[in-house]
């Protein structure tokens, strides 16, 4: 079932089916024509920026589906929702915030399949700490939206047990950092049991939660677990960054037969975007082309996407043409999209929030070097957080996270 978009605006050339097929199992390796709608670059004037209205809209790949309201973010954090689609009158779709998009995805899947259920701390009538599950308990009943006691390893274990007997649980970690307690179950059981049972038992579980550096939440609540989980065989990892892909990835993850870990970011929950009314999912193994370009490939995911896009504005003013890809799929990497980009630009910059040692960037560098070494004109650069626990003090915290200024400097150095 393909969702079709009605193009709005001059840039739309063709109507093409966008979302991947909604077949229950995403087959690996088959590249479907999947283009997630690109972001429009035209932005509204805002007091804190002198804006050059970029002509980015012309650079777009032909599959652009029409303008999206660009969320211009001051500190690459959505604090205020800036909804300004004023240019076109009746746009299709509806606007919502990222956490609402996640909820919508979850709700639709729960309606569609009675086996989908939610487990986590305070997800029931409280609605979840970030309100992703708000209203679901009233709608589907306490049996399908289960409040668990504070025992992460055990309720993840419960989810695994339920999954192999036929339910499709969505396990919420209140904060990704708490899932460190569930590591035993995730690694030894969730990832392994399909394999060690010889394929007899499947674990179609989704484990999700907010992670990443927030606003002065302290070291324990600012963890990036993708670097710890990436080595576990048998699981898939995806990171969402916009309401559109949040809903799409949530739905795809629920429909997948593999265990999927969906990484959300604490600071992105209030992003607003207009998303289609139709049913759609995002392919779990595909990266998203955010901004095509010619000079340098910038690979990023989750919140860093916004820092990169902000840096991209500055770079465009300085005459560079960066290609920005949101890798989305953290395990396995979408080396097809990434590879094509590397072959085009020959320079790679990775911007991530993980720590330097053993992070996603480290694996990505290894993967790219192994496969595309001949296409590189310069060594791959990776900007990541330092190997320190995240401090509480605001200024210190800001400097553990990669800032747009650093990204600009890195690109300039790379393109010398």
């Amino acid at each position, binding site marked *: 079932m393909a969702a079709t978009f009605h193009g709005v605006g001059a840039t739309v050339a063709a109507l093409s089916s966008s979302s991947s097929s909604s077949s229950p199992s995403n087959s690996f390796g088959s590249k479907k024509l999947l283009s997630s709608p690109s972001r429009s670059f035209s932005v509204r004037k805002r007091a804190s920026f002198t804006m050059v209205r970029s002509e980015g809209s012309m650079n777009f790949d032909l599959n652009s589906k029409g303008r999206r309201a660009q969320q211009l973010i001051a500190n690459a954090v959505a604090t205020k929702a800036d909804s300004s689609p004023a240019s076109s009158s009746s746009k299709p779709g509806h606007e919502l915030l990222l956490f609402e998009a996640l909820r919508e995805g979850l709700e639709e899947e729960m309606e569609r399949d009675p086996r989908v259920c939610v487990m986590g701390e305070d997800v029931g009538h409280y609605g979840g700490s970030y309100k992703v599950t708000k209203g679901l308990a009233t709608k589907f009943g306490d049996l399908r939206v289960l409040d668990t006691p504070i025992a992460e390893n055990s309720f993840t274990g419960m989810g695994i047990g*339920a999954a192999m007997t036929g339910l499709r649980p969505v396990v919420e970690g209140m904060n990704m950092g708490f899932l460190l307690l569930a590591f035993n179950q995730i690694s030894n059981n969730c990832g392994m*049991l*399909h394999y*060690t049972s010889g394929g007899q038992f499947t674990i179609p579980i989704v484990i999700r939660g907010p992670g990443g550096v927030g606003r002065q939440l302290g070291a324990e609540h600012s963890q990036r677990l993708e670097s710890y989980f990436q080595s576990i065989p048998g699981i898939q990892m995806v990171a969402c960054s916009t309401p559109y892909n949040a809903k799409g990835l949530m739905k795809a993850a629920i429909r997948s037969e593999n265990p999927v870990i969906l990484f959300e970011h604490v600071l992105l929950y209030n992003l607003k975007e207009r998303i289609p009314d139709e049913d759609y999912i995002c392919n779990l193994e595909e990266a998203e082309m955010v901004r095509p370009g010619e000079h340098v490939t910038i690979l990023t995911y989750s919140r860093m996407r916004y820092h990169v896009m902000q840096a991209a504005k500055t770079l465009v003013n300085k005459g560079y043409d960066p290609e920005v890809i949101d890798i989305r799929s953290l395990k*396995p990497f979408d080396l097809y999209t990434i590879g094509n980009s590397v072959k085009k630009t020959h320079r790679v910059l990775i911007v991530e929030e993980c720590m330097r040692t053993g992070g996603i960037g480290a694996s990505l560098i290894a993967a790219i070097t192994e496969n595309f070494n001949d296409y590189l004109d310069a060594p791959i650069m990776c900007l990541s957080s330092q190997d320190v626990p995240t401090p509480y003090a605001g200024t210190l915290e800001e400097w553990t996270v990669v800032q747009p200024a650093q990204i600009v400097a890195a690109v300039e150095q790379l393109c010398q």
Partner: protein
Amino acid sequence: MYSNMVTLQTLDTIFYEAQRQGRISFYVTSIGEEAINIASAAALTSDDIVFPQYREPGVLLWRGFTLQEFANQCFGNKADYGKGRQMPIHYGSNKLNYFTVASTIATQIPHAVGAAYSLKMDKKDACAVTYFGDGGTSEGDFHAAMNFAAVTESPVIFICRNNGWAISTPTSDQFRSDGIAVRGQAYGVRSIRVDGNDALAMYSAVHSARHMAVNEHRPILIEAVTYRVGHHSTSDDSTKYRPANEIEWWRMARDPVTRFRKWIEINGWWGSEAESQLRSSIRSQIAERAEKPPVNDLFTDVYDNIPSNLREQEKLLKETINRHPKDYPADVPI
């Protein structure tokens, strides 16, 4: 029930000897716990989902796993349902509702609660059953799972095989509570302590537990007191930490199989001739020489479909094997 207990004993002896002769790498016996294994399995239905620790092959045996299938898993050959991926005794059978054994202790207990929850949601006439030892009750998973089973009112039966030893740790070093049954009470779970070597008592306890669990939607804890007569596994020599005469006493005087046999003999249902016939027929049932699983089974089932990165790794491995065939075993098909 009796013939299954004897079969289990014989099975254990044969495989233990096979390990000592080097034919399999590892084995775990259930000597001394045959009554728990078989009697509890007999009191359940085939719809009840079992989450074992690793000392419960008797449950599988009762449900129809053939001796050949046991052997296939232990030898890790092509016919193994686990496709040669796990150590010996990590049996698993989807169709017999016996969840694949994982080496981790007590992780199966929350799984059982989740499965029971799922059964409750589906309103099935079945329950989840999980087994673990006295050592397993120290794990955090045990406590949280019990607690949560009580809160969610899930139909799950927790069977603790209190056999006195966790490898070399006696129960006096494991906990200071009055056994395991009191822990159930602490969590609001109805509990009972049973003589694990009395097959009839086990049967009757599990039977009523199942009735309560399924009809009243509540978890039940059964503490079956027994003794681990064998070593923890073939990598262990228990005479190092416990007196040999203690082991002998439990093996001879308190053997559950003998005890049950005496009862059925007294009732006139069994005799010594039937006994020797049974024992000799079991030994002849197992074949050993079978093909090993192929190399690509290394990569299948990690995910539902093989992703590109694994396909690459598989290709690399095959190329390496083809280039250096002498360095790889000849009997493994590629």
